[in-house]
C-alpha cells in the first residue's frame, strides 16, 4: 500500500491547505495531519494529504549511508 511521494510546499493557504510542487506540477494538499509546515519544506503526500514532513538532515544522512556501501567491492554482476 501507500503510494506517497515527497513534494515541496510552495504556498500556504488560510484554510489549512498548501500547494505543493512535484517536478513542476502543482497540487493542493491538506495539512490537517501535520503541524508547523513552512514554505520550502518537503512533505510526504498520500491521497491529497501531507502525512509527515521530510527531514532533510536525515535524508542526507541516509544518502551518505547508501553511498558508503560496496565501495571497493567488485560488482556482483
Amino acid at each position, binding site marked *: *500500500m*501507500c*503510494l506517497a*511521494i515527497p*513534494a515541496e510546499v510552495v504556498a500556504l493557504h488560510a484554510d489549512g491547505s498548501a500547494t505543493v510542487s*512535484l*517536478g*513542476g*506540477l*502543482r*497540487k*493542493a494538499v491538506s495539512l490537517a495531519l501535520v503541524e508547523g509546515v513552512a514554505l520550502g519544506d518537503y512533505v510526504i*503526500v*498520500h*491521497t491529497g494529504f501531507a502525512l509527515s514532513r521530510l527531514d532533510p538532515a536525515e535524508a542526507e544522512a541516509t544518502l551518505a549511508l547508501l553511498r558508503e556501501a560496496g565501495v571497493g567491492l567488485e560488482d556482483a554482476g
Partner: protein
Amino acid sequence: MASSWGRRLDWDTGRVDMTHGAGGRAMAQLVDELFVAAFDNPLLAKKNDQAVFEVPAGRMVLTTDGYVVSPLFFPGGDIGSLAVHGTINDVAMAGARPLYLSASFILEEGFPLRDLRRIVESMARASREAGVPIVTGDTKVVEKGKGDGVFISTTGVGVVPAPVVTPSGERARPGDVVLVSGTMGDHGVAILSSREGLAFETSVRSDSAALHRLVARMVEAVPDIHVLRDPTRGGLSATLNEIAQQSRVGMLIDEPRIPVLREVTAACELLGLDPLQLANEGKLVAITDRRHADRLLEAMRADPLGTDATIIGTITEDEHHFVQMETAFGGRRILDWLVGEALPRIC
C-alpha cells in the same frame, strides 16, 4: 454574410435540438452556417451527399475512427482537433499522404451550440493547417441522455506513393531498431489534469498533432520503414506489445532513453501511473532496419514534430514476444500492456 435562412442561429445560448438532425430546414441551416462555412472547401460547398475526386496513382489508404473523448476540451486540444489529427495520423502510419477527410457528428439534444461551434472551428483550423480538407459529412441528433454531448467519427483517404513500401505491424525483424518521435504520455496527463477530482495544475498540454509531414520526410529518407504506428490509447507499452505479437518478435528497450517530460513523470508518480501506458496523439513509433536507423533519425529530427526523436531499443528473437526493458536502475523488467484504463491508485 447575411443569413438566407431567416431567423439566425443563436450561437451564444442556443442548443442542439431534434430538428437539427431531422433533415429539414433547421438541419440544412446548421450544416450551412456552421460546417460548410468552417470547413470551407469547393467539394463541400457543392452540398452533395458525397464528394467526387480524381484518384491519384498509387495504393489507396482508407481509415476510420470514432472520437468519444471526455472532457471535450483539454489543454492543447479538443475532440475536434483530435478527430482531425487522429485520422490523418492513421493514414500517415501507412506511409501515405492523406488526401481528404469526412466527418460524421452525433449530437446529443441539448448540447450547447457555442461548444459545437468551438469544436467545429477547431476542426477547421486543424484541417486547414494540415492541408487536408473535410469534404463530406453527416449530422444526426440523438435524444438527451443517449449521447455524451458529441461523438465524432472521421474517415480518411490517402495514397501511398510508389517508392514507399507500406509499413506494417508484422514487418519488424530481429536486429531492427526502434525509434520514437518525442516525449511519451503528454496527452494522457493533459486529459487527466482536466478531469474532475484529480485537480492538479500542470503546464503539460496534449501533443495532438498531424504527423503526415513528418512521415513524408521519413519515407523520403527511408522508403522501406518496416513499422510505423502512433501509440494512442494504451500508450507506448500497448503499441510495442501489439507489434511484438504481430511480428512474432521480442524487444529490448532502454528505459532511460525514452523521452518523458518532467511534469509527466511527476503526475505519474503522484497518481501511481506509468507514462508508457498513457495515450499520445502526436507521436509515432518507427521500426527500421538498423542500417537505416541513423538516416531515419536525422530526418525525424529535422521536422518540428520530431525534434526529440530518439532510438530507444532493438528488436530481438523471443518466442514469448516479451517487450523487455533495461531500467534506469540497472535491472530488467517486462513492459506489459495495460488491462483496461489507467486509473489513479493509492496502493
